[in-house]
């Protein structure tokens, strides 16, 4: 029996896992996908929000500001890329300036450092490609960008190194309270635990409602994106937002931490919590945004789109995070309604949850907690000499597998064999960026498959895109 089972290995679950792994306990994360960050955490803006947007006094506001502060330090400890590029909210008429003032006031109440309103001249100097309609902008210097996968992967790996067990492709079907413990029925048998932490993203309401009479409701709010080639990644330095609307922060234009550019997300509530499909109308809308004067005075050329994708926000009816022990279900903890700024807040959510759970179970801290982790070695960051030494020691680092992102075989092998190692094409992609470039895996697919097959000792026909039934090839030629 476990002390704690965390449902969901998204960024929230992974942060909770990492913070809990500081304690002496027997715990496990169950995840229905084949990897960490395979739901909401894999498809979002990757923005580190400074915290001016959340309603003052809300848990969201508190955890956002705390999370922002934690992230910069974590990036060093756990070796994942972040960039403090700042955020701008651009007003395009006098009416919108009033809104900026509102946001500025919120920023002060929320304790967001350094936020100020810039005049048109000031902001145009900072971002010369802003639309000519710009009249003023709110500037938040602590805004940043992050690789959303890497945060979850880093936290997950570090938790794993510190003794946290992960069970992938394990879907919780039902939860029963059995005396002092919970029994989690899964597709791989029943798991028993003293405590449950519900970090199930868009499904957090389902699990909460299995044990509580005080129902919560989470809506999947879809956001679609266009991702552009790195050649147009320098349009803006900061993440550029419009003045927010009812459904969220609006469609932004921003660089990613790796230097691509994106336009998105949209916001549409959907019934089906698996509907991570893009849609014709929305892609058309985003195309219009890219073409016409939306935040940018330059047309973003559509032939530079490298992919489009959609993600689902876990929108809770009251639009605040729920981080709690469920009042009528002892030892059942929720981390629910974790929508934007959830990614930024996740380290703070992890810390808060770990505190609650450890106090509940009276957990003691480990004597030897490993607080640091090295990410997948990026040879491009080495000097030529260091790189050559590396290749001499391990020739795989001399073999480029992904030509767009210049990812070597060495990095892919590293991704496969590290803690919570990659088992599928998408999990390699998230760890190394192989296949994430402008050709979208056209070149590297057969090559990556070969490395996976060799390293995992499995046949080419067993290799999947993302676990489950997502095999890439159906058989050998001459056998059909």
């Amino acid at each position, binding site marked *: 029996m476990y002390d704690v089972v965390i449902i969901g290995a998204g960024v929230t679950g992974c942060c909770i896992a990492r913070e809990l792994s500081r304690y002496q306990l027997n715990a496990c994360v169950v995840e229905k996908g084949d990897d960490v960050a395979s739901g909401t955490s894999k498809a979002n803006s990757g923005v580190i929000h400074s915290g001016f947007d959340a309603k003052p006094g809300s848990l969201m506001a508190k955890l956002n500001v705390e999370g922002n502060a934690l992230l910069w330090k974590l990036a060093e400890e756990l070796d994942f890329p972040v960039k403090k590029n700042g955020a701008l909210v651009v007003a395009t008429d006098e009416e919108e300036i009033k809104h900026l003032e509102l946001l500025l006031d919120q920023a002060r109440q929320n304790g967001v450092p350094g936020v100020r309103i810039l005049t048109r001249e000031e902001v145009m100097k900072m971002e010369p490609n802003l639309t000519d309609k710009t009249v003023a902008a709110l500037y938040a210097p602590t805004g940043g960008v992050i690789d959303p996968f890497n945060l979850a992967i880093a936290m997950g790996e570090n938790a794993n190194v510190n003794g946290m067990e992960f069970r992938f492709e394990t879907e919780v079907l039902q939860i029963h309270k059995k005396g002092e413990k919970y029994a989690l029925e899964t597709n791989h048998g029943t798991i028993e635990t003293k405590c449950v932490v519900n970090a199930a993203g868009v499904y957090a309401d389902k699990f909460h409602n299995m044990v509580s009479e005080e129902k919560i409701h989470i809506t999947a709010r879809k956001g679609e994106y*266009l991702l552009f080639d790195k050649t147009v990644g320098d349009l803006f330095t900061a993440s550029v937002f419009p003045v927010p609307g009812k459904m969220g922060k609006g469609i932004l234009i921003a660089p990613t931490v790796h230097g691509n550019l994106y336009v998105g997300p949209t916001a549409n509530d959907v019934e089906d919590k698996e509907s*991570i*499909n*893009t849609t014709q109308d929305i*892609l058309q809308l985003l195309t219009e945004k890219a073409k016409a004067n939306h935040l940018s005075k330059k047309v973003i050329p559509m032939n530079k789109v490298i992919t489009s994708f959609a993600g689902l926000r876990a929108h809770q009816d009251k639009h605040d995070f729920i981080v709690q022990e469920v009042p009528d279900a002892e030892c059942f903890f929720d981390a629910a309604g974790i929508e934007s700024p959830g990614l930024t807040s996740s380290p703070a959510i992890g810390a808060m949850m770990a505190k609650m759970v450890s106090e509940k179970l009276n957990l003691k801290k480990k004597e030897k907690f490993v607080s640091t982790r090295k990410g997948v070695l990026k040879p491009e960051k080495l000097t*030529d000499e260091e790189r050559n030494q590396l290749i001499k020691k391990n020739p795989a680092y001399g073999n480029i597998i992904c030509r767009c992102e210049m990812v070597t075989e060495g990095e892919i092998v590293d991704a496969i064999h590290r803690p919570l190692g990659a088992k599928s094409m998408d999990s390699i992609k998230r760890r190394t960026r192989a296949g994430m470039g402008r050709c979208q895996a056209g*070149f590297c697919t*057969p090559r990556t498959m070969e490395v996976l097959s060799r390293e995992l000792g499995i046949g080419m026909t067993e290799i*999947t895109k993302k676990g489950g039934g997502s095999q890439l090839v*159906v058989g050998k030629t001459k056998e059909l």
Partner: protein
Amino acid sequence: MMKSYEIVIIGGGPAGLAAALEAKESGVDSILILERDRELGGILNQCIHNGFGLHTFKEELTGPEYAYRFIEKVLEEKIEYKLNTMVMDITQSKIVTYMNKTEGLVHIQAESIILAMGCRERPRGALNIPGFRPAGIFSAGTAQRLVNMEGYMPGREVVILGSGDIGLIMARRLTLEGAHVKVVAEIMPYSGGLKRNIVQCLDDFGIPLRLSHTIVDIRGVDRVEGVTIAQVDEHMKPIPGTEEDYDCDTILLSVGLIPENELSNKINVQMNAVTSGPVVNESLETNIEGVFACGNVLHVHDLVDYVSEEAALAGKNAAKYVLGKFDGQEAPAHTVTLEAVDGVRYTVPKTVNIGRMADTVKVRFRVGNVFKDSYVSVYYDDERVLHRKKMIMAPGEMEDITLDRKRLQEYPDLKKITVKIERE
């Protein structure tokens, strides 16, 4: 001490091989071909169908056979090449940095560089096809490599988007391997593929080609389960009510090729927005002196024979460049610009230095639409000097005209050569 070569050729596909052979033939001994794949021959190695070489060898060869004709000579001529080697960087001063498993990261000095990197396929993202993102969506060329070089089948029930030649060829290939190709959808009102391929790859097997159709939805979370295709209007927007569903486990995309000019961009080679390839002069030289381009990195070809011919010219001129033969022999520079208008999308080359050009220079171009019973016209400034009737011209087939030096020399004040399509 940095090793140096007179000519470094980036890419060992059909363009790189032909360029190397011609450079050698022209008297250059110090040549290095850098190839990222495990063998020479480039994309031809996966093009196991026949139809190559009719122009060059007057017989129909398969891709690997065509490649071997060149590889054999490269071996005979003992031209140096490196496999499994990626070029990481080039500089304007022609330092080439490559990397492989055995040597690591190596810098070499070239006197001349020939860009012969070929092209890549346009991915789904570039088309904004909506829907899910399951396994089972391949670009046609990736599927071709999986089937023909690795020996694996991408799927059983296939829908193909785009009627480019690779897509058509793969329709036949997969059918012969036991898969069921249900339909080929083409967004344009005409196919980008050769007629022969439409007949022999689709019609022979009863595979329908739906012109003016595109994919508007992809279903399936883990693996592709189906697609919806719809008819498009003249603005290529899907027409509501024309949707048709197909169950399938695989989607192949054959929706265009893009020259791979990431390295060219590193040294600020001037690019042509239409071809996505370098702007070159009559010698296939880019704006960076001593850097030449040929093959699909320059502009996407439909026949490898033309690639070989073009690349040989690049090889010859690179040799002239390093042997110093561009100087001295030439009359004073007299550069004219070629303009592509009225149905002509682009020309390669873009400029011609009449003083330096060979006796004749072939100008290749593509048209932007299907033209029947029309004329290819060439104007020297305002004077029409060529008016050639063509029964048919189509975007899928490259056209050419030939410029004659002697004739051009009769126009000492010439500024501009215009190539256009005229109805009469």
